[in-house]
């Protein structure tokens, strides 16, 4: 198994399927591929820069205010992303609404700061940040594609399946537009990954 911080989080220690973190946003923004894409880009930016910044000053962060310092840095990066989205991608930022702001509370970001950036030098921390963000991103993009395709017959707004309404054959699955479908898809994904890699499954609890 790879120990490279860039590769490890893609499948082996994927933040979503293995550590089951960042689920709330994965449910909320995956209604379409375009919102998933923008959310992924936002998280890649925040996670890689927060890891590098925190790792750079890690020797001088007093333990007593450790979490406050980390959250301040993360929140500042999130505000910057939010402003940039509102300036350049106004329509999509309205659809993402509060979820970009909620990256602050995304367990993946603070989790990587605590678990990795506080203990490692900036370069491996950058790789770890990018790796974890991509681990989150590919799952978001996969679920976003499936949901948009089955709920509206489109991908990135382009028609793929011709709808019955437009004289085609495809009847959209309305469930896919609703949050529970993201849960089902995520569960199926975790099942597949853990069937291929049985070592990821939790041990059965001893009674």
């Amino acid at each position, binding site marked *: 198994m790879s120990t490279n911080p860039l590769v490890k989080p893609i499948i082996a220690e994927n933040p979503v399927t293995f550590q089951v973190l960042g689920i709330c946003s994965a449910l909320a923004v995956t209604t379409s591929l375009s919102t998933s894409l923008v959310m992924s880009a936002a998280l890649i930016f925040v996670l890689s820069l927060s890891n590098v910044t925190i790792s750079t000053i890690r020797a001088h962060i007093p*333990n007593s*205010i450790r979490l406050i*310092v980390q959250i301040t*840095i993360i929140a*500042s990066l999130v505000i*910057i992303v939010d*402003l940039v989205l509102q300036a350049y991608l106004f329509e999509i930022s309205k659809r993402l609404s509060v979820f970009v702001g909620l990256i602050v509370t995304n367990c993946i970001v603070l989790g990587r700061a605590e678990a990795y950036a506080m203990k490692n030098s900036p370069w491996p921390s950058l790789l770890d940040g990018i790796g974890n963000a991509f681990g989150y991103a590919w799952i978001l993009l996969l679920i976003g594609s499936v949901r948009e395709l089955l709920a509206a017959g489109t991908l990135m707004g382009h028609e793929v399946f011709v709808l019955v309404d437009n004289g085609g054959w495809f009847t959209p699955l309305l469930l896919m537009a609703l949050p529970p479908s993201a849960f089902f898809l995520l569960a199926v994904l975790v099942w597949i990954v853990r069937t291929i890699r049985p070592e990821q499954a939790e041990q059965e609890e001893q009674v």
Partner: protein
Amino acid sequence: MPDQKRVNIWRAFLNRPNTDSAKTLGVAFLVALGCSVIVSLTAIYLKPLLDANRLRESAGSLVEIVDALGVPVPQVRLVERTSGEYLSRATSDKAALDPDQDLAGLKEVENTLTAYEVRDGARLTLVILPVRGAGYKSTLHGYLALKADLNTIAALTFYQQDETPGMGARIMEKKWQDLWRDKKTADATGAIQIRVVTGAASGIYEVDGISGATRTGNGVSNLVKFWLGTNGYGPYLARLKQQGDG
């Protein structure tokens, strides 16, 4: 050497143990300072783009109202608030409002107002007024369109608000905004009567409230009353009526 000295102070600060309270305060201060500078610079740099996006959204809402009513392009008028006369140039000064006059919760209001007039030849057919005011937990921004008699509502739309989703935020729904069409604003004495009521509306001065959003409804009532009144567009509308434009 002063430079050498400064470096030494910085070194000494960094070399202090992390449990030291001076270092803790110092690190907290420096992190807060660094973060706030970066966030502020981003906000200042992006401000023109953000403002342009908000303006475009407000203009889009105006275009919608004009499209929905199927009328020609409106003429932009600058109006002196207190006299109701047209102005050729806008002034940026504002007047403070007394709390008992401040129905819309604005605290202060511009002395130059903007109005949009739609004419069929020389005859006035529609006046569109930008309105805003306090709702339950945000400022509501919208447009109020009056028909030629200046006493009948042609449309009321909102384009910006941050009310409770599913409750107050439903003032954005076309279905609710359509309830305002053809309601009368003032009675024979000229007093503004139009308002949002809880429960079912009766009569030409009442609009059905949204259940669970009484305070947003009150906000809408108050802002319409304010902007049609003497501290808002009242003098301007009175002048149009007097001229026989109405």
